[in-house]
């Protein structure tokens, strides 16, 4: 079968997954538990995806770990998105230059 059919099938599923909640949930949710749950979801999801994945993403795990610590410190100090991302990249680039 053509690759295009597979690609469009994947698109149909992923589009439904993303758009259905946005179109079906029209009212503010009143239930306190669900409200609280949805409030915590984004932060938990991002945290779960960050560690230990960041350590696995780099050639040298130590560089990834250092980038994590540097990123947390920079964000804690109030650095913006682009700055934090840039600091993480720079830490990895420099450390891997030294370590290898």
């Amino acid at each position, binding site marked *: 079968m053509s*690759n295009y*059919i*597979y*690609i*469009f*099938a*994947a698109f149909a*599923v*992923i*589009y439904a*997954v*993303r*758009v*259905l*909640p*946005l*179109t079906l949930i*029209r009212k*503010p*949710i009143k239930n*306190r538990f669900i*409200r*609280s*749950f*949805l*409030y*915590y*979801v*984004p*932060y*938990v*999801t*991002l*945290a*779960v*995806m960050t*560690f230990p994945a*960041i350590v696995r993403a*780099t*050639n*040298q795990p130590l560089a*990834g770990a250092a*980038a*994590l610590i540097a*990123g*947390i410190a*920079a*964000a*804690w100090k109030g650095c913006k*998105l*682009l700055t*934090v*991302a*840039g600091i*993480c*990249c720079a830490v*990895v*680039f420099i450390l891997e*230059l030294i370590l*290898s």
Partner: protein
Amino acid sequence: MKAKSVFLEGVRDGIPIALGYFAVSFSLGIAARNVGITAVQGMLASFLCMASAGQYALFSLIGAAASLGEIALVTLITNARYFLMSCALSQKIDPEMKNYHRFLFGAVVTDEIFGITVARPGYLDPWYNYGAMAVTMPGWAIGTGLGILMGTLLPARLVSALSVALFGMFIAVFIPPAKKDKVILGCVAASFAAALLFDLVPQLSEISAGTRTILLTVVISAAAAALFPRGEAEDE
């Protein structure tokens, strides 16, 4: 115009994401090339799906000559976290917002775009998302195409450094609220610990990254909601 300045804010915040996407999709392109996906097919898949783990799964299933049903099921599982993200976003939509916006910006709810969207206070402004989409979609699609065409041309050290840009952005989203709210800080610590456990314990590490993300998100967020429910007045 307000829409224009909001659009430009989206472009600005989308640029670091687009750079990170470029690096990641380049390696995605290399994987696609290995199973015989052409550059046009790869770019189309990237433009439509905008999903890292989901597309890796798609390409490997195409390589394994899987059935359409299998593709649909695996796509559903690897992308189910977007369902939770969209549920969360539905609570940030202005009731006055035009309907078609939901269908447009909803097409590109990715981990990173979700991250920068929730970081903005108040109602969601679709123009912010369109700005972010205007740079991230080409970044993701072109990266995939170049990965397919050029294979391993980019130096490994550069790919390695660029690959943490995405995580840097995640960190920039969850650390500021964690600094203000002890419960979120606790959630982040619990998430790190649980994710590490799933990574290290042999039986747990066999669970795919997408499934792990859903499982831990549901369990940790539900525990936090049960133990520390938020009052009405606390919502922004």
